[in-house]
């Protein structure tokens, strides 16, 4: 019918809306029509009981009339009526044919075809409906079909035989649709069921019953069009100059149609969003507002595609709407949005608070909206060039997002107070995790400002139980509270992440020992490989931050040791998700590449890689140069390498024929290393101090002083190692002036070296000199013999260990024997052996607490 009228109306711009679109949204329209139909039907029945004349004033009038005109009524003076009639007959025939097919399908139990035909039937019947009355044959068909379906279902329960997949799918589809569909025709079906024959006959009389002959067709035409407008998209509102108000009653229907079109192709999302914006204006009750806002926000999220982030203005709008939603929920405490609430099926009524209901429950998940909003912001930050002002602009949106997160948290806290709602702990955990994600990497002052601003947005009467308002000023305490909450209320990944965030924050704020102890007690380094990639990245970041913290505290050994795994790999960028590595020979599928790109952190979260490298190399220098000097004098000591990366760079640097003045960080460190190795500690200090990047550290001057001190000491050690063979005695005074150290400090350093058996010397207290012992240098043969004996005992040990591993179950016998053997040989020797070993490794063991193992790169790429 509508097509016919549209054809006639040449002035309407609606004709521009192409057919295709019409078809895609056909189903929705259909349903809507059906729904409308059903309401009209009710009206009609009332009319029938009262008076014929009352009909035209009713709301359903227009449609009623049009159909009337197109049906067999002869009063209509339009010439098109005859045409319509013939078309209608044709459609009736089609309908009959479909019904027959369905009946056949029923006979052979072919649900696949029934399902198809049923859909077709529904489409056809829409066009045939007259005055809200579906054709009788249709009613008969669907009534029978329902019976048959119930029967099949009952049978299904008894027989163990299963339907095949297509059949089952068809069956389920029909089952769902038929329930919904039949509701609309319930009264007719009931009538049919009561007395099927009477029903089939009576309709002939009933059909012409309403006689709205007085109304002109033109009027009907206009109102029909208006009705059509209402369902079809309001395109004409402006053009007509008369805004057609969206009535609050129609909101639910619109929403339903929009929700159902979600995810389909060719839906005009922008159009839908516009509709909903309008709807939002007219929505009156909180329930409707909530529904509209929910749908609107989801629709906006749909705008973003898999690769691109959602447009900026929509993000902002979504943010505003989410804020509105949350404040709405806050003011109307009897409305709650919870997951797993039942869908409100009746579109004509707005749910009201029943006498024994405490809440109106709206299905939906606030936390998912917030998460999505957060993700979208991250994605947009990933795609913006970080060096532009656009990035900074975008970053300011983070504050708004943080507000939303805070409000969301408050919302969940309030709803969780009521145990009857059964809000899962997980939602709260998720939202707290999000909040934590936004603060853990920021300095305390920034967090403080962020927190205070967010709390300003919240009315002063509200306070959070988990993170009281008073905490806003104390970032450390806030992080602690959030992490503790997660730690005690969650498990698995969230728990691990909470812990890592806290460690990161502690490390960032120079709480090295706390951070280290937490890292060690968490035992994360043992099972980090089992976590997902994002968590592994967080672990790597935390590890690096702990290393940097150790460096700031002057703990060179710990810093080097901690950073070793990340920086030694040469894949810092990848391990910290701060850039994709170009891999020459590896084959990365586009899919993997895309995933990796998605994982990248936004720029403002980055850890400065150059600073990191600088710290790592400086630490390596301070450890490696004395070691090289120690090894240098006796080439046969088992070669120990602390940092392969550093060694490689040093070798490369030494191979260069001509070395110019240092340009980058690496050059500086390398030249400093050279100077240090030559005992020129002042020059080394100068090189290190002239590295510009130290200024990025919070207290650059202190760090430089610390480094100078370290270089002095290590310089002294290097000097002693290098020149010991050439001296008999050395005055402590001389050393002290050479290295500008206190003589007591020099004495302490020398004592330490003597005690650790690194230096064959002794102090003479009377003359205050270092006396080097002679005759300790080994001949080639002697040192080889020593090395051989070392290897032999190592071999035995390995064998023992292997056997132990092999015979784990029955190893008791062996270990008992081992114990006895230990007793026989006497502990003294054993102790001696142990002593020698620890003496040699003293430097390596000095920290005692090493945590190693950055999450492996292979896992990252996977």
């Amino acid at each position, binding site marked *: 019918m509508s097509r016919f009228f549209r054809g006639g109306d040449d002035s309407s711009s609606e004709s521009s809306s192409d057919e295709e679109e019409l078809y895609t949204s056909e189903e929705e329209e259909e349903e809507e029509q059906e729904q409308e139909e059903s309401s009209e039907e009710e009206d009609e029945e009332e009319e029938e009981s009262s008076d014929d004349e009352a009909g035209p004033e009713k709301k359903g009038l227009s449609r009623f009339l049009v159909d009337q005109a197109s049906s067999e009524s002869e009063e209509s003076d339009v010439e098109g009526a005859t045409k319509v009639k013939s078309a209608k007959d044709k459609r009736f025939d089609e309908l009959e044919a479909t019904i027959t097919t369905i009946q056949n399908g029923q006979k052979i139990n072919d649900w696949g075809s029934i399902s198809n035909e049923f859909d077709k039937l529904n489409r056809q019947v829409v066009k045939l409906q007259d005055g809200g009355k579906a054709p009788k044959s249709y009613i008969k068909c669907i009534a029978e079909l329902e019976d048959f379906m119930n029967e099949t279902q009952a049978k299904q329960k008894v027989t163990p035989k299963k339907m095949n997949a297509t059949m089952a799918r068809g069956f389920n589809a029909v089952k769902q649709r038929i329930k919904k569909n039949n509701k609309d025709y319930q009264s007719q079906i009931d009538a049919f069921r009561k007395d099927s024959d009477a029903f089939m006959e009576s309709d002939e009389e009933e059909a012409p019953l309403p006689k709205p002959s007085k109304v002109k067709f033109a009027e009907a035409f206009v109102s029909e069009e208006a009705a059509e407008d209402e369902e079809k998209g309001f395109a004409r509102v402006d053009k007509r100059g008369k805004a057609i108000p969206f009535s609050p009653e129609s909101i639910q229907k619109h929403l339903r149609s929009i929700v159902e079109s979600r995810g389909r192709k060719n839906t005009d999302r922008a159009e839908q969003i516009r509709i909903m914006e309008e709807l939002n204006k007219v929505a009156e009750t909180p329930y409707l507002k909530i529904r509209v806002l929910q749908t609107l926000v989801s629709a906006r999220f749909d705008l973003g595609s898999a690769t691109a982030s959602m447009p900026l203005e929509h993000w902002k709008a979504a943010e505003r709407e989410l804020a509105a939603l949350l404040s709405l929920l806050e003011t109307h405490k009897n409305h709650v949005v919870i997951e797993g609430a039942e869908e409100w099926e009746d579109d004509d009524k707005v749910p009201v608070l029943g006498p024994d209901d405490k809440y109106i429950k709206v299905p939906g998940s606030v936390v998912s909206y917030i998460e999505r909003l957060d993700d979208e912001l991250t994605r947009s930050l990933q795609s913006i060039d970080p060096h532009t002002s656009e990035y900074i602009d975008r970053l300011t949106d983070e504050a708004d997002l943080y507000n939303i997160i805070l409000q969301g948290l408050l919302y969940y806290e309030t709803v969780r107070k009521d145990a009857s709602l059964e809000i899962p702990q997980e939602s709260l955990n998720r939202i707290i995790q999000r909040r934590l994600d936004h603060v853990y990497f920021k300095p305390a002052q920034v967090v403080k400002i962020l927190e205070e601003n967010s709390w300003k947005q919240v009315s002063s009467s509200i306070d959070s139980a988990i993170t009281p308002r008073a905490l806003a000023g104390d970032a450390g305490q806030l992080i602690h509270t959030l992490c503790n909450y997660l730690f005690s209320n969650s498990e698995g990944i969230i728990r691990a992440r909470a812990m890592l965030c806290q460690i990161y924050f502690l490390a960032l704020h120079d709480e090295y020992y706390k951070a280290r102890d937490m890292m060690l007690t968490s035992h994360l380094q043992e099972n980090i490989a089992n976590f997902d990639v994002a968590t592994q990245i967080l672990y790597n970041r935390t590890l690096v931050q702990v290393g940097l913290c150790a460096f700031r505290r002057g703990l060179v050994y710990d810093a080097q040791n901690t950073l070793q795994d990340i920086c030694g790999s040469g894949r810092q960028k990848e391990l910290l998700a701060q850039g994709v590595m170009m891999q020459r020979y590896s084959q990365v599928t586009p899919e993997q590449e895309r995933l990796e790109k998605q994982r990248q952190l936004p720029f403002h979260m980055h850890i400065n890689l150059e600073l990191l490298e600088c710290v790592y190399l400086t630490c390596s220098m301070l450890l490696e140069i004395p070691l090289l000097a120690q090894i240098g004098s006796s080439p046969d000591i088992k070669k120990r390498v602390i940092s392969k990366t550093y060694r490689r760079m040093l070798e490369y640097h030494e191979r260069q024929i001509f070395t110019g003045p240092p340009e980058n960080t690496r050059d500086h460190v390398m030249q400093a290393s050279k100077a240090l190795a030559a005992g020129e500690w002042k020059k080394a200090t100068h090189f290190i101090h002239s590295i510009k990047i130290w200024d990025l550290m919070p207290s650059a001057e202190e760090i430089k002083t610390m480094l100078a001190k370290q270089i002095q000491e290590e310089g002294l050690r290097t000097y002693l190692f290098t020149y010991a063979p050439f001296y008999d005695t050395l005055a402590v005074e001389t050393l002290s002036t050479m290295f500008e150290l206190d003589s007591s400090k020099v004495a302490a350093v020398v004592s330490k070296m003597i005690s650790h058996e690194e230096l064959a010397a002794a102090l003479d207290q009377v003359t205050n000199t270092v006396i080097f012992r002679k005759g300790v240098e080994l001949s080639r043969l002697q040192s080889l013999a020593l090395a051989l004996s070392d290897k032999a005992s190592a071999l035995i040990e390995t064998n023992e260990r292997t056997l132990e591993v092999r015979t784990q179950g029955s190893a008791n016998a062996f270990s008992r024997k081992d114990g006895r053997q230990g007793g026989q*040989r006497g502990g003294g020797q054993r102790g001696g052996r142990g002593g020698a070993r620890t003496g040699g490794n003293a430097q390596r063991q000095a920290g005692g607490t090493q945590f190693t193992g950055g999450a492996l790169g292979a896992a990252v790429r996977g």
Partner: protein
Amino acid sequence: MASAPTPAAGGNVAEYDLMLKLAPHLDRHLIFPLLEFSAGQLLDEETGDVKDEAKAREINQAKYALLKKTDMTDYVANLYCDLEGLNEPPAEFADKKQKVFSQLQKYEQETSKIIELLERDDVVNNLRSDKVANLEFLKREHDVTIEMVNALYDLGNLQYSCGNYADASEMLYRFRVLSTDNDKVAFATWGRLACEILTMNWESAMEELQKVRETIDSKLSQNPLAQLQHRTALIHWVLFPLFNFEKAREPILELFFNAGYINTIQANCAWILRYLAVAVITNRGRAKNPGIHQKQMKDVVRIVKQEAYEYQDPVTRFVHALYLDFDFEEAQRQLVLAEEVLRSDFFLLAHADDFVDSARHLIFESYCKIHSRISLKDLSARLGLNTDDAEKWIVNLIRDTRLDAKIDYKEGTVVMNHPPSSVYQQVIEKTKGGFFRTQVLSAAVAK
């Protein structure tokens, strides 16, 4: 719980008072001796007068608060009178006493039968090691019910609460023989440990200690937190035998250096390091096995270093200065402080002299290891002795430790001789055990 140390009274020593840290991990009855000791510290040694009235009162209050919950009614009543200046204790104490008394009688009645049974030889001889069978046997032959067994436990508990430790220990022992309730047995074991400690019955305290340790290691392995807490408590409790019973020293040190316990100390109660360090240092001459002692010393040094950021007192600082910084003057200064601290510590009082002596040895040893020539005068100043005494002391030392050193009297120096370890000797050392170990290995493989 305990009195807050006032700086005026104890000076800087008070700041190292561990009372507050120790108390939460000890039982009420075990804290009592510590409080008594603090009270004793306030008495002037010569006159017996109380030096600081306010503080003494505080301690009395603490005592009262501590014991209020126990059933030692008479003593508590007296304390109350003292505190309030009353002559006659209020009626409530009498009431309570009466109640306790009737309770005691009730339990005694309930348990009289089983106690009597357990004293009969013919019954005891029939008991086997299987607890369930024992209970069955008693049920069958003598109508012993499980309630009667549990009454033993309750009686033991009550007697302990009354301060009647010896009897309590006996009751708990009997209960443990019969009961099959694992939790209660564990509690009974702790109870017995406390009883034995309080009755200074160290031998059996050590037995109980072993039992508690086994329970912790086996039963609680699924619950790391409970394990940690129990271990912490155990570590604190065994301080009593550690410093009061010579034979307990070796096994307890061994316990402390056990991986689980050393981790507990590091994680939960770093202040125990003071006791650990003192115990190891004073153990110097006594240890049967110098190798083990060396290893323990090394462990102490390592842990002191690791925990330096968390816990420091003169004792750990002494260790730090001597073995990590090689700052002998600082070590000397800390030693003086440490002595003071030791003298005001309940556990360490008796070992203060011993500690100072051993610490001096350690300083000297370490000093000699590094120096080849030391002036006698300087050394005597360092050791805090006059020159003659120092000379004697060194001579003794050289004789005792078989140090390779000589005194050059004319120059007034001690000359150390550090023979470089011969490379041949080193090779021999390294390959010494090889043959034997290989033999063991091949035997194990052949099996």
